[in-house]
Structures are given as structure tokens and as C-alpha cells.
């Protein structure tokens, strides 16, 4: 049946990603882009839109997969995608937290932390590239992206939503001027 194929497809894509989402959902955006567009679930432009919506909405950014699941197969798809993405890493977190309530020895923990950090960082940049690869990119996109990074860098207390709203406003107004 078509639907169960779709559901299986969603699970097979998102469940493995759950286990490599080091640093959270941000790290797996590149793969979500590649696989969801490659599977024909989304058009590139839809991916950009979904990415924006998931960043504006409350909750972790990985709720992006809820939108993908919904588009693919309605409520069942949304639920399947959610379970697939959140259950594996949560189960692992549960298992680890029960057994290492007080972990002994800093050495291995530090090695893990500083070992995974460059990969997490690389995945974040790969994610940015993934969004730019399919978005309408031009100087304005770069300007808003870099500008946002700089503003929030210098004013860390600023609400990210305000910056996203500004980005939206700029993109709406500039074409009217030009």
C-alpha cells in the first residue's frame, strides 16, 4: 500500500538521523534536505519554507520533520516522522542517564566532547550550505544571513524571532524599492 510505503520511508530516513544528531536537529539539516528532496517528498522551495517555519515555531528546530511527515502522509506521517526522529536518541539518552547518574572519570567524557565538537560544527555549516543550495540565493540572502549572525553575535540578548521577522521584512520591502 502506498501509505505504508511512505510511512516506512519516513521512518527509515529519520530514525538513523536521530542517532547522529550530535548537537541536536541543526546538525542533520543537510541530510534532511538531501533525502527529502531526493525522495520527492518536497520541492527545494518547500524545503526552505519548511525550514523557516520550523525555526519560527516553538519547539526544537527538528520539528521540521513533522512538516515533512504531514506533507507526505497527513497526521500518520507527522506522527511517524516525530517518533522516528525523537525516539532513538531519547531512548539512548534514557539508557545512558540511568546507568551513568554520576559518571566517573572526566577523561573519556572530555575526549568525547572535544572529539565530537568539530564534527558538530562541520555539520552545522553543512546545514547552512544545504539551505543555501536550494534557496533563492543572491547578495540579499547572504547579507541577511551574515547580518543576522553579526547582530546576534554582538547583541546576544536579542530575540532571534525579531531577527527572523526583520529578515522577512527586508525580503518583502527590497523588491518594492529596486
Amino acid at each position, binding site marked *: 500500500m502506498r501509505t505504508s510505503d511512505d510511512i516506512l520511508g519516513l521512518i527509515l530516513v529519520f530514525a538513523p*538521523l*536521530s*542517532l547522529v*544528531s*550530535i548537537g*541536536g*536537529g*541543526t546538525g542533520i539539516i543537510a541530510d534532511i534536505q*538531501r533525502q527529502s528532496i531526493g525522495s520527492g517528498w518536497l520541492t527545494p522551495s518547500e524545503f*526552505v*519554507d519548511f525550514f523557516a*517555519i520550523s*525555526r*519560527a*515555531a*516553538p*519547539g*526544537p*528546530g527538528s*520539528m521540521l520533520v*513533522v512538516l515533512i511527515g504531514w506533507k507526505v502522509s497527513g497526521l500518520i506521517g*507527522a506522527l511517524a516522522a516525530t517518533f522516528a526522529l*525523537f525516539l532513538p*536518541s531519547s531512548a*539512548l539518552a*534514557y539508557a545512558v*542517564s540511568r546507568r*551513568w*547518574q*554520576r*559518571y566517573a572519570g572526566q*577523561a*573519556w*567524557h*572530555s575526549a*568525547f*566532547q*572535544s*572529539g565530537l565538537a*568539530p564534527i558538530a*560544527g*562541520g555539520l552545522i*555549516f*553543512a*546545514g547552512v550550505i544545504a*539551505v*543555501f543550495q536550494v*534557496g533563492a540565493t543572491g547578495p*540579499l*540572502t547572504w547579507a541577511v*544571513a551574515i*547580518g543576522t549572525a553579526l547582530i*546576534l553575535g554582538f547583541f546576544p540578548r536579542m*530575540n*532571534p524571532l525579531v*531577527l527572523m521577522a526583520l*529578515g522577512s521584512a*527586508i525580503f*518583502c520591502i527590497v*523588491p518594492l524599492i529596486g
Partner: protein
Amino acid sequence: MDSPDGSPAESDRTAGPPTVSLLSIFTTFLQMGAISFGGGVTGWLYREVVDKRQWMSAEAFFAGLAINQILPGANVTNMTVYVGAHLRGMLGATIALTGLLSAPFVCIIVLFQFYEHFSDNVTVQRALTGAAAAASGLMILLGWKVCRQLGGAKALAIMALTIIAVSALHWSIVAVVAALAPVSILLSWKRGAP
């Protein structure tokens, strides 16, 4: 929305956490999920769990943070599981996570309905592209922060390899992590990471 797993919670409690109702766990995390815009959720969680409700000690909370940083999954979801597990074992963890994700789940689907309705509107399209550009900027900043903490040329090389593998070679992230993580951790271990 979902049913708790069948197996009973293990009872290796240390220093007895308070008995907290499942409803209380659910509503606390429901609230947190509903207001979790942008960053800073961990701070909110700390205030609720450690300060206001004394569900766990600060020490235990930070131990959780430390271990969760090296685990896959978003910090907020892993901490939710951690706190829920501490209070009521597997059932607590499940209820907490369900609470956390419920409001965002509903909200994002509602937003999607609006999106579908207006998706062919040029202004909406531009607004979303602008928002995506800004959100990318947030990610760039995050990446930059991680970059600054890296200890040396080897770490930067690993980061560069990651970017090349994913963005240029289009390897799957699973493959990249499987290939690079052991190497990177080993290098880090040998370096005697601070």
C-alpha cells in the same frame, strides 16, 4: 498521544527524588514546549526544575547537561528525558517528552495549514525566504561559536573534512559520523583534551 513502554521503571533511586505526579510532569513540560522559542530553554528548565520545584539538585542537573552534550539529540529533549527519568523512571521520561513536544507539534501543523493556504502568495514566499536567511544566520553564528572552541589544527581539519564530505561529496551524515567520530575522539583522547 502515545502509550508508555511496557517495562517497569528501574528503582535505583539515589537520595530519593520527590514524588511528583505524572500530571505535574506533563504540564511543566507542556508549558516549556509552548514557550520554547529560540534558545535559552535550558535556563528555563533549570529555573523550573532545580529552583522552583526542587525536583533535582543543581549538581544532578549539570551532570545531566554534561552527559547530554555528547549524546545525539537536541539538548532540550535529552534533558527532558533525563529529568523525567529521574522523577518517575521510564514512565516519567515518556510523559515529559510527550508534554514537551505536544504544543510544538500542534502549533507547527496549524502553521502549515496557513502556509498551504497562502503558499502561492508572492509576499508570503518572500517573507519565508527572508526568515530562512535570518535563521541560516543564526546557524552560522552557532557554527562560529563551536569553531572558536576547537582546540587546534587537527580539530579544524576534522571540521573541514566534515563539511567537504557532506556538502561536496554528498556523503550521508551517518557515514560521515561513523567515519570521523572515532578518529576525532581518538585524536582528542591522545591530546589529553582539557
